[in-house]
Every structure is written in C-alpha cells, then in structure tokens.
C-alpha cells in the first residue's frame, strides 16, 4: 500500500491522538466548513496560560484528521503564546510532509487552535 501520504500521516489517521469532545472546555475553536469538506473543532483546557489538555473533532479527509491529531500532540503542554505560533508548516513537517494539494485545504488544525486561543483570551480578558 503506497498511499500518497507519509507513514506518519497514515499512523495518525488510523489511530488519532486526543480525539473526541471535551466535557467542559475553557474554549472551543473552529476552522474549515462543511461545504469544503473539512471542519475542525478544537477544545482546550488552559491553566496558567498553558494548554494542559486538548481534544478535537474533525470531519474531513485523511490529511485533515492526521493534522488535527498531530497538532494535538504538538500543542499540549505549550503556553498559549507558544501554541499560537504553531504553523501549518510545523504540523506538516512533524507529519513528515503532506501532499502539496493538501497543504492549505485540509491542514486547518493550527487555524482552529488559534481560534480557540483567541476565544479563550476574549473570555478571560473581559
């Protein structure tokens, strides 16, 4: 089986990490839309400006699922400032690359995380 995806992508696709809905998240971020086929919800728990837990739900292709799973691994334990700077490229690199065509359309997890952080800050700055 020689998929157009790296082994890493396939691993995360088959056995995603931190997948699921969070009971009482501190914030929820969203990216993508059903019309395009990829939607990510990212739920975070924050303590001392640090992401201590992250869960997610994704509708999407293998790249969408794998990038969300990868992002979860990368984000958990980071401060909000650090996590906010996570880029699509870092996620893709951690996955040993993505097919070029999938770089921008399905690799939306970092956007969803930024959205969650933004919402968290809005709530807590008020």
């Amino acid at each position: 089986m020689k998929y157009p995806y790296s082994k890493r992508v396939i691993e995360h696709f088959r056995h995603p990490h931190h997948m699921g809905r969070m009971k009482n998240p501190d914030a929820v971020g969203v990216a993508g839309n059903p019309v395009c086929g990829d939607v990510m919800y990212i739920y975070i728990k924050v303590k001392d400006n640090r992401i201590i837990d992250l869960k997610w739900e994704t509708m999407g292709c293998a790249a969408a699922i794998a990038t969300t799973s990868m992002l979860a691994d990368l984000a958990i334990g980071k401060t909000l400032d650090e996590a906010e700077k996570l880029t699509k490229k870092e996620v893709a690199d951690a996955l040993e690359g993505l097919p070029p065509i999938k770089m921008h359309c399905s690799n939306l997890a970092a956007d969803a995380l930024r959205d969650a952080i933004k919402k968290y800050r809005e709530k807590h700055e008020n």
Partner: protein
Amino acid sequence: MQVYLDNATTTRTADEVIEAMLPFFNEKYGLPSSEFGHSMGIDASDALEQSRKTIANYLNVKPNEIVFTSGETESNNLAVLGVARAKGKGHIITTSIERLSILNTCRHLETKGFEITYLPVDKHGLVSPDDLQSAIRDDTILVSVQHANPEIGTVQDIKAIGEICGEHNILFHTDASSSFGLEDLPMEHIDLATFTSHLIHGPKGIASLFVREDITIKPIFFGSNNEFGIRPGFENIPGIVGFAKAVTLLSKKYVEKMRKQRDHIINELTAIPHTYLNGHPEKRLCNNVNVSFSFIEGESVVLHLDMRGIATSTGSACSSPNLKGSYVLEAVGQDPEVSHGSLRLTLSRYTTDREIEYALKHIKDVVSKLREMSPFKDEDTFRKMAKEEHK
C-alpha cells in the same frame, strides 16, 4: 480479504479473455496490412473481422457498423466531433451529467461556433424527454445522452429520447459504456453508440463506436484507410480479440445476481441513519450503489476501507486531484456538504455474497468511527453551518 467494489472505474480482465488474447501476442501477431499479403496478415484480418462480427451480432447490428477505437474517450470524441465535422455547424444537445469526454468535447465545439444545450437532470439524475423536446431547434444536428451514469447508476429512457430524435430527424448518440451487458439498449432508436471493453472484463485500450450504416461522420485523425475510413492506424488485434471474447461472456444471469446484491447493500446502508441513496431508486444499473453519509468525508471512508482490503470510490472533492467535487452529484442538486460523504460501490459478476457481507460490516464500522470523530451529530447543526458558509 480483498474486495474490489470499483467496477464502474474498471474491471478485472476475465481469464477466458486473457487466454483468447495470448496467441495474438506471440503466435498470430501479424497485422492486416495487405489484403493480398502473407498468411500471418490474413489471419490477423480474419481475427479482426470475426471479432467485429461477434460484437455486431451481440448488438444485433451489422458488422460494418462497428468501428474500433482506443477507448471510450476516443469513441465519444469520434461521435461528437465526427458529426460536428461532417455537418460544419449547428446546435448540439447533451446533458449536464455526461462523461468529461462528451462535456469537454462540447465545450471545445462551443469555441468553434457550435451551440450546445446542456439538459438538466432531476434529483434522481433523469433527463426529461419533455426538456429534450423543447430544446430541439431547427439547426440541432446531434443529441448525445448517456445510457447510464457511471457514478450514480441512473438509466435514461433511451427509447423515448431516440424516438424524439427520430421524429425530428436528428442524429442520436449514446455512451453505453457503463450499461454494456447490464441493460438492454434499443439499437433501432440509436444512430451512434459507444461501448468500451474494460468495463465488461475485457482489456483496456480498446472500445468501439457503433455508427449506423447510412450515417456519414468524419474521422478525428488522419492516416491509413482502416476501419471504413473512419479510424486510421494499425489495429490492436489482441485488444480487439479480447474485447470480442468479453462480449461472448456477457450473460443475463450475472445481471440478476448483481441486482439482488445491489438491493441488499442499498437496504443495509440506507438503514444507517442520515444516509441517502444517490441516483434513481428503480431506474438504476444493477451493479451500482451510491450513498451519501452525512457528517463525514468520503476520502477517509475510502482510505479506511482500503486498509481493510475493500476498494471503493467517492465523489468527494478531497479525493480528486483538483479538489473539485462530483459534478454529477452537483447536477442532481445534492448539497456539497453531503456529497463529500458519498461512497460508490460497484459490483461485477465476480463479486461474491461473502465479499459483500465483509464490506458491509466494515463500511458500517468505518462510518460509525468517523462519525464519532465528527463535530456534527445532527442534520440541523450540519446544514446550518454549511448554509452560513455558503452565503
């Protein structure tokens, strides 16, 4: 277990077909280059004409009405461009769910001054004969409507369409590649028809175009005077022999078997909540199942199934090299968020009940796992979010 459920893309070449072709590779490998040449060439010529006769007999047409080409794409181009070139100008009617080889040929002809009407289809993929009737103009030169759609399996009323064309004296072409051997075709109402080999367990790289004897079309490329002057180039004799052999293996008994299997699959899959059948509930190819699962995306379904040995396909944009979703599902009015979750299963005579049970079990499991992962659990939220982003 390996289960191949993508027989609308291509089929396994039958062992009998391979056996029939083999001698033409390294024993009887001549070409019919000269009528008064050597035996090897004469044998090739005999094999060519015998194959032509076999296919003509199956279709109940004349051997000189069967032209061999390199594939469905070439046959469709030869039909549409061939008529357009013979007529010089005019209006052509087709549908919005034809193959790309029809649609893109028509788009090309638009740049050359031809006018094209793309008939819409209803939510089941059916063309309305009334729509055709009203689209006909004084300068309409050709109607091209596929017999059955390879994606959603909808079978058109070719008799009604052919009769309307006949009344108006307009040439009628149908791409019958997807229905060949599966659905009867009223040849008496048809002027041109495409049939391809690789969808009936014949070899790839060979197809035919039926061209009614009294019709003049112009070739789309030029060279030697083969195939009644319509298609130049040396004949692919092994391919032609294999194609003809595949035709002799067609049988109604397989159609019956596939129809039962299809109905069973449709029953089982539509019993899964938030699942829709695409295409027509009755006027449908015996080997086609196409459903959409809300809340999930098809590429992941196909990939998970493939990892379990099951080959299927989807109309999801994420699965296509240009990220465009199925234009067929769009034409039947399916919302894009739902068509992302489409899954097509297409059967062949070789598909066993055991394979189907295996596939059904895994499809249900994969759908349920992916839905667990999905942020959407109810249609309202799902549709509302899609609508918002549509604005």
